[in-house]
């Protein structure tokens, strides 16, 4: 045990004396989360919309006035029939089309409800979502105003419809994604680099000749990164709670458990990478191209998996990050317990074991 502590101490010296790794460890997570957090805000300003008003009565004109007078929207174009909707979207300037149904006012008075259809261009899903939310809230305000003196309230029913990318439900909940990427980066890339560094400098040989067993060497190299990754995870969660007001719905304990599991998965991947590469540069290239890229593209962080072509959907199953993002979203956004995410959790466990098994085997072959 004493040997072990000495080993870990030495590992921390390495980390704290290398400004580059310090930056990746601590600067990167904060920078990334801030960047994502502020770049992907829910604010919209002067979004161009088009309106198809089929009734052109007092109420619709009033609503249109409300909408165009808000700072969020500017009415770019009035269109006259449905066939114009698609060309308008395809031009790209207009992000949403509002459609008032026929006899809007009459229906509102007679049947107490009328429908307003909101069609949004979901190629930019975040904006699409926000537009429909903002329109809804303008409508609600208007309803409250007109309902003040009436017994049976009028209801304007907004019907949102996203075109081009109907899969909106899981996109751009950026905190789980960023957290996944960062933990992956720190755990997998940094460990693989630090292990290959020992190989490259020849110190690995010295360690293997020492009475330390190979697995002790590896664990000694990995433990500091577990600590640092946990600190990173905590920082990210705190930032998202306090800076971005994103509440964690589920159990913090479960969140911590799953995060540690994912950290270990990434570390085992890092170890695997280090057994495959003999120089730091190779390790870095494998980590970046072979790990980070698929993680960012195929994990569902940015592009929804369900709208990918089938082969990519199948490939995405072997990306650990995909499962962790599902888990994180479940815990942080939906507040689910382990009974809802046990499948994803066991996938991660299984992958971890496979990575470790391969690494052990590779390691032995190398030693022969």
């Amino acid at each position, binding site marked *: 045990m*004493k*040997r072990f502590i*000495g*080993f870990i*101490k*030495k590992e921390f*010296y*390495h980390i704290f*004396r*290398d400004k580059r790794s310090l930056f990746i460890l601590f600067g990167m997570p904060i920078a990334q989360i801030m960047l994502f957090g502020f770049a992907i805000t829910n604010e919209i300003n002067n979004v161009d919309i088009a309106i198809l008003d089929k009734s052109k009565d007092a109420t619709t004109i009033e609503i249109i006035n409300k909408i165009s007078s808000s700072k969020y929207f500017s009415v770019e174009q009035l269109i006259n029939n449905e066939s114009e909707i698609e060309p308008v979207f395809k031009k790209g300037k207009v992000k949403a089309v509002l459609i008032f149904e026929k006899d809007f006012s009459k229906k509102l008075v007679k049947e107490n409800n009328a429908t307003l259809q909101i069609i949004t261009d979901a190629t930019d899903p975040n904006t699409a979502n926000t537009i429909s939310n903002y329109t809804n809230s303008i409508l609600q305000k208007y309803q409250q105003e007109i309902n003040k003196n009436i017994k049976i309230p009028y209801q304007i029913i907004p019907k949102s419809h996203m075109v081009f990318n109907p899969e909106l439900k899981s996109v751009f909940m950026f905190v789980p994604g960023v957290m996944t990427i960062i933990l992956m980066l720190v755990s997998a890339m940094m460990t693989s680099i630090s292990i290959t560094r020992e190989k490259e*400098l*020849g*110190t690995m*040989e*010295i*360690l*293997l*000749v*020492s*009475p*330390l*067993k190979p697995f002790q060497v590896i664990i000694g190299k990995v433990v500091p990164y577990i600590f640092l990754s946990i600190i990173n995870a905590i920082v990210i969660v705190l930032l998202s709670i306090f800076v971005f007001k994103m509440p964690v719905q589920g159990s913090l304990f479960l969140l911590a458990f799953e995060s540690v599991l994912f950290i270990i998965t990434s570390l085992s991947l890092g170890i695997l990478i280090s057994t495959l590469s003999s120089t730091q540069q190779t390790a870095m290239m494998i980590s970046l191209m072979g790990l980070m890229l698929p993680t960012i593209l195929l994990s569902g962080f940015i592009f929804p998996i369900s709208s990918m072509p089938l082969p990519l959907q199948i490939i995405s199953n072997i990306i650990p990050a995909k499962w962790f993002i599902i888990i994180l979203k479940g815990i942080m956004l939906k507040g689910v317990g382990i009974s809802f995410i046990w499948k994803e959790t066991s996938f991660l466990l299984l992958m971890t074991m496979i990575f470790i098994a391969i690494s052990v085997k590779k390691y032995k072959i190398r*030693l*022969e």
Partner: protein
Amino acid sequence: MKQESIIQVENLTKKFNDFTAVNAISFNVKKGEIFGFLGANGAGKTTAMKMLIGISTPTSGNAHVAGYNVFKNPENIKKSIGYMSQKFALYDDLTVKENITFFGGIYGLSRKQIEVKRRLLVEELGLQDIANELVSSLPLGWKQKIAFSVALLHEPKIIFLDEPTGGVDPITRRQFWEMIYKTANNGTTVFVTTHYMDEAEYCDRVSIMVDGKIEALDTPKNLKKQFNAENMNDVFLKLARG
């Protein structure tokens, strides 16, 4: 005068698929001697050494190092030997002191022992001024001297040196060999690979490997006589050219 042997090697062989890197070598190293392990690059000396220090399992044959079998007890071998390689044994981003503490620690020395050893070492090598410097700031010669001393921290019975003087100037090499002599005088067996033939002259006995086999093994004096050569360089050339 029959001395006790501390390394016994019998028909030790290592094959990588079809390639035989080490082909049934046999030799003994006596306790306290400086044993030179020579050979051209690729002759198999590093592979042979790796089997002896317990990080590579032989394909066949047998060997005992410090009384332990290389198949059954590689872990015990590791405790009884020190090792320094041609690449650096020290961490560049740690100070001299931290390196000593770390390597003492992984060999299981207690904090007190390390403290004592460290003071001794600092004094012996005159490291007072640089003990708290990062190793990366030291000249090559210093690094190698310190690495050598660090490899001896846990008082191993045998020290294995893999081309320890690669890349240093003649004066430092000379000093390094003085340290080796001192170590051998204290009873530690020194097993050293080198391709500087002048260094071979400093060894008590020398073996020369060619293509995985030991082609010659004797004292430098006898070898020169046997091959009718003026110096070890000629011996080596005659052997290597067949």
